[in-house]
């Protein structure tokens, strides 16, 4: 039935990304070894990149792989191995009684609320952004062009602000990670 309603490839792409995303996410929150959690995170990020490609966000898919799976996860792995915390954390003790069931109930309410909102409202047809070109989204190199002209015209101030943010965070990380020199 699904195959007749939708072209098989796009359904297959969705299923691939869904399996990658959900398996990776469940892996992140269940495995005990932080290194394995980081590797599961990579699976999730690849799934998200697949979903991006399927929705004609080609540039963001490439950035997702390069920045997230390439840089951020490597940073996680570097810190895990630098600190040597790849031993198992103890998860038996619960500081709050019934923390896990309460968290499960709260998360279930949030997800059900989100899905109910999506099902009942028409916010998908809301007002478009200031950079809306009025033409359809382009794929491939055209997508890079489209996104680039939006970022460097409409969102130029925000783009410059991210440059300042990155400089500040790099300086902050260096200051945090530096060992304090003892006065002689």
């Amino acid at each position, binding site marked *: 039935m699904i195959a007749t309603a939708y072209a098989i490839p796009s359904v297959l792409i969705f299923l691939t990304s869904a399996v990658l*995303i959900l398996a990776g996410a469940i892996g992140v929150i269940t495995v005990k070894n932080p290194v394995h959690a980081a590797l599961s995170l990579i699976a999730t990020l690849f799934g998200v990149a697949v*979903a991006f490609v*399927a*929705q004609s*966000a080609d540039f*963001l898919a490439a950035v997702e792989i390069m920045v997230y799976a390439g840089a951020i996860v490597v940073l996680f792995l570097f810190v895990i191995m630098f600190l040597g915390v790849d031993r198992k954390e103890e998860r038996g*003790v619960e500081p709050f009684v019934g923390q896990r069931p309460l*968290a499960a109930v709260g998360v279930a309410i949030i997800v059900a609320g989100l899905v109910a909102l999506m099902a009942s409202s028409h916010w998908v047809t809301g007002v478009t952004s200031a950079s809306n070109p009025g033409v359809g989204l382009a794929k491939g190199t055209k997508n890079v062009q489209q996104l680039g002209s939006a970022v460097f015209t409409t969102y130029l101030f925000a783009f410059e602000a991210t440059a300042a943010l990155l400089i500040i965070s790099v300086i*902050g990380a260096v200051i945090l990670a530096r060992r304090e020199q003892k006065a002689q």
Partner: protein
Amino acid sequence: MNVPAAWYLVLAAVLFGIGAFGLLTRRSAIIMFMCIELMLNAVNLTFVTFSRTLSDIGGQADVFFVMVVAAAEVTVGLGIVVTIFRRRLSTSVDELSELKG
């Protein structure tokens, strides 16, 4: 013919829920950062889905900025984790209870 946008939105909602559950239940600060990344990616997926639905490049520009902020957040956050580990030899958030009332 593409799959309906609602499928991707539900997938993003479930991913957000998994990330939130992990953030609430795990003890290691590093794993909690990974759960925050999961939640940010769920939001990114929602942005891209609405970008496709509305034929609007603005959603993709937002995802770009979310990625930059996520990178900055991980850099500073892991720096803090390293600093705490030097003092406490642990990354468990249960050990950091000085501010408890």
